[in-house]
């Protein structure tokens, strides 16, 4: 039991961060607006959660210009994917 709890990742405890990771593991990348629409959160709220995931190096940020407008793409790093899958597995174990 203790071992399973250890596998639960604090970074994914939050609903929004969980949502961001769920969306990013099944997509090559998503931009800020796509994530905002999916999660239905405010700009500031989303930005702060993205920043914390980035600090953990679970997601990667790529800035570019689309029709001269700045566009930020977010994608999941390999570490992020591994950590997220471990987290899901731990939840499933707990529920067994």
């Amino acid at each position: 039991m203790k071992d399973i709890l250890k596998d639960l990742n604090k970074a994914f405890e939050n609903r929004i961060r969980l949502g961001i990771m769920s969306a990013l593991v099944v997509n090559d990348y998503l931009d800020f607006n796509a994530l905002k629409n999916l999660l239905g959160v405010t700009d500031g709220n989303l930005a702060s959660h993205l920043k914390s995931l980035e600090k953990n190096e679970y997601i990667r940020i790529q800035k570019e210009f689309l029709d001269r407008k700045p566009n930020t793409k977010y994608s999941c790093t390999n570490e992020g994917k591994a950590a997220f899958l471990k987290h899901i597995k731990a939840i499933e174990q707990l529920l067994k």
Partner: protein
Amino acid sequence: MNQQKYIEDLKDIKEMMNKSSKFISLSGLSGISAGIIALAGAYFAWETIYSKTGYQDFNRTLLSFDQLIQLLAIGFITLILAVGFGIFFTRLKAKKSKENIWDSQTKTLVINLLIPLISGGVFCLLILLKGYVGLVAPLTLLFYGLALVNASKYTLTEVRSLGILQIILGLTATFFIGYGLIFWCIGFGLLHIIYGVIMEIKYTS
């Protein structure tokens, strides 16, 4: 232990994965309307082809150039109407569930649907010009089925089954050449209607 929270978490994860990678606003009504329009189109095609020939000559008909043009026009109008109503009903559904209809998922879906579909469409036009009229119905079914299977990764999984059925129907129709219009009615008409009804029952509750 807050087990309930983790059950919710898993549900959220699954829902977000689906919502973010798949186009899920496809309306069952789109299928039903496409089926009905296809049946109407098939009726007009039937009139065009067989109005001047008796029932006995049913499966060995030669088409005149005028008939060919008329058939192409019917096909084109049917396609426009079916796609138009499809988009209309899907928009209606997306609006109801407050989902964005034209996002990156829709784009991937449309592109993956169109690659086999346009290849097939051009191929059918070419063989039609070469005079292989009988092969057009089976081949449109076959290519449509392949297009659906290809696009099904990006939308509801039921689309894949629909695609496989269309492929089987297309191949069968190739064997029973001359009865193309009947198979065409089953595939584009009946299957669409059945699929639409199933979708409506399953997802509208």
